[in-house]
């Protein structure tokens, strides 16, 4: 028994030594690089220290879009020797959201967070008033349609970053061959007529295709275009349990049944790629998709691609935008918030906006960028992008509800089920989705 105790203590000591040596070896550098942000207030300024601004991005800074952002961060840091923005990728929209939740509990938040547009409903209480830290000219310069989801109680809290919007792509050659008006369908009813005329079973051509993606974004957009809404003004009541919510579901079901729409849910889980591939092959004449796919659809086809506004039915156009905005966390020090504001101002300079748009295909975010000779020339050569930008005048704000993420995840399952089994009553599907969504709202008040 005595030996046992001795050994247990020895093992315990060993474990502690491992832990403690680890701790002492690494912590000083950690405090300098990462915790410095949180502890800035207590650090006496013996010599002028750099203001550290932690920036949590949805992208990995070493690849693709993230690399572009990282380049911009480097440029900013070089130009501002007293500030150091530290960008880190947090695993996409959901990753940033999950980490923010944990960081809030641990009181260890970043200064800037790049969050999905609709998440402001949730993070609004911790987001700073950007008008205090960014210049007025920058805020006024944002294209208006992109800032509809940026305000909470009239306060500007989210700066547009990478943004997109749904749009209708058309195979202009097929439209011309069918003798249809190249201006495209204005309403969903017209879209159905177009699709009928464009469909050619002998050549395996479908007139139209579309899908609900991971967050039912396209369905949401279509509901607005029918004059409907997702939730009421304060986000406490679901507002789509009606014909405006179900019309697009019925339309898609009808078009699948009369074989004028390619049903992406009949095959596999990769709807977006499946539809795009068929569009590229000339087997789908019209594709309801994100502007994010523009580069791929316009550059990889052997035919002419035209782009028209998302159809509507309620008498006026209305669609969602998507993507992410930047918020500044209010808990950061005044110094950090000012530095963060300066960084967001920097990202909105024409040069950066134009570069980011040309490299990624995400919408340009500012009005002045549209006036630059570079962008004007680009839009002249690729007028399809101009249609997407013009469409922003009809942008609708994202639904304002604290738990919208949980709701849209639930919604998409119901909407998918209606396209997998097209005999389901669309009113019933939307009603069931609404009940589930209302439950989420009620349980999380």
């Amino acid at each position, binding site marked *: 028994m005595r*030996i046992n105790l001795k050994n247990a203590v020895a093992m315990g000591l060993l474990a502690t030594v*491992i832990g403690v040596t680890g701790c002492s070896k690494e912590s000083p550098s950690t405090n300098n690089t990462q915790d410095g942000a949180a502890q800035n207030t207590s650090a006496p300024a013996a010599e002028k220290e750099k203001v550290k601004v932690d920036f949590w991005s949805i992208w*990995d800074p070493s690849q693709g879009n993230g690399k572009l952002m990282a380049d911009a961060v480097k440029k900013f840091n070089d130009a501002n020797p007293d500030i150091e923005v530290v960008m880190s990728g947090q695993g996409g929209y959901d990753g940033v959201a999950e980490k923010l939740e944990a960081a809030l509990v*641990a009181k*260890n938040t970043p200064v800037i967070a790049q969050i999905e547009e609709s998440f402001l409903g949730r993070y609004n209480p911790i987001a700073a008033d950007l008008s205090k830290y960014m210049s007025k000219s920058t805020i006024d310069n944002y294209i208006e349609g992109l800032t509809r989801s940026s305000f909470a109680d009239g306060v500007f809290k989210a700066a547009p970053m990478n943004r997109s919007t749904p749009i209708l792509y058309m195979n202009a050659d097929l439209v011309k061959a069918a003798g249809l008006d190249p201006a495209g369908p204005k309403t969903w009813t017209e879209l159905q007529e177009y699709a009928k005329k464009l469909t050619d079973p002998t050549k395996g051509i479908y007139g139209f295709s579309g899908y609900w993606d991971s967050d039912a974004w396209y369905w949401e957009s279509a509901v607005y275009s029918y004059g409907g809404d997702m939730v009421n003004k304060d986000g406490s009541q679901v507002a789509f349990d009606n014909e405006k919510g179900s019309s697009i579901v019925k339309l898609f079901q009808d078009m699948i049944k009369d074989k004028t729409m390619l049903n992406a849910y009949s095959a596999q889980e990769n709807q977006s790629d499946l539809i795009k591939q068929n569009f590229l092959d000339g087997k789908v004449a019209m594709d309801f998709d994100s502007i994010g796919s523009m580069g791929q659809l316009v550059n990889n086809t052997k035919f002419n691609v035209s782009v028209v506004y998302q159809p509507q039915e309620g008498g006026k156009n209305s669609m969602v935008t998507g993507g992410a905005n930047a918020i500044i966390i209010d808990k950061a020090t005044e110094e950090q918030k000012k530095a963060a504001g300066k960084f967001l101002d920097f990202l909105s300079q024409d040069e950066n906006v134009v570069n980011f748009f040309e490299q990624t295909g995400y919408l340009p975010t500012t009005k002045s960028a549209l006036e630059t000779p570079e962008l004007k020339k680009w839009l002249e050569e690729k007028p399809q992008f101009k249609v997407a930008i013009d469409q922003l005048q009809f942008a609708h704000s994202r639904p304002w509800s604290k738990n919208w993420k949980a709701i849209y995840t639930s919604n998409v399952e119901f909407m998918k089920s209606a396209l997998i089994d097209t005999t389901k009553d669309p009113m019933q599907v939307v009603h069931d989705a609404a009940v589930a969504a209302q439950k989420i709202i009620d349980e999380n008040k």
Partner: protein
Amino acid sequence: MSYAAKVLRVLLLLTLVLVFVFPFIWMLSTSLKTYLESIKFPPDFLPKAPQFVNYSKTYVRIHFFHYAMNSVIVTFSIVIGQLLVCIPAAYAFAKKKFRFAGLFFAIVLIDLVLPAQVTFVPIYVLVSDFGWLDTYWAMIIPFIYSSFAIFFMTQAFKQIPDELLDAARMDKATELQIIVQLMLPIAKPFVLTAMLFTCISKWNDYFWPLILTNSESVRTLPMTVKGMISDTPGLTQWNELMAGNMMLIIPILVLYIAANRFIKNAFVYGIK
């Protein structure tokens, strides 16, 4: 067994193998396709001309060496740490009588069924208070304890007859000698199996490194491979992504094949 039964059995086994191996072959085949081939529907099973260049492109794109080294450091440290912590613990549970032993073992068992999501906020807060966020320590220290390893090895140690231990004590062996020279050689398949499971799960772990770290300097391989899924719908380069996945799993696959015999022994024969 009749000839027909034999043929049937082989056919059945082959079908089962196909079911499990197919996703792997699919990944391999996609990793060698061109982008357009990778999104084609209906898909072709094999690429027209294998694009080995996908691998070299991906190697550069995901900074493979840097992240793989981090993965090796983290995985290796956790495995060593678990050996140091879990073997003595398992030995105590299996062979020693002490107060509240049953209670402690029950706590270990309860921890076994708790999902990571339940413990994620407390661990995050703890690690944050220690100032370990964004260091290797955050990814190593909380995981050198493993309830699975303790439970699994306790069961193995229990099978070793007490008489052997008594004999060793008669020869004046210390407790450490008993563990290292007696218990471990006998329970080798179990210990190796537990370590291999740890290796696989920590090598593939995405959730904890994401939560506990911020910067690229300490992050591990699954994080950079996940980063290849673009946030713009439909622009993911599936062929390169699959090449990344192949590069991610190859080390672990090699390890598994090498240690396959021990795992089978541990589950089929037990302690001989």
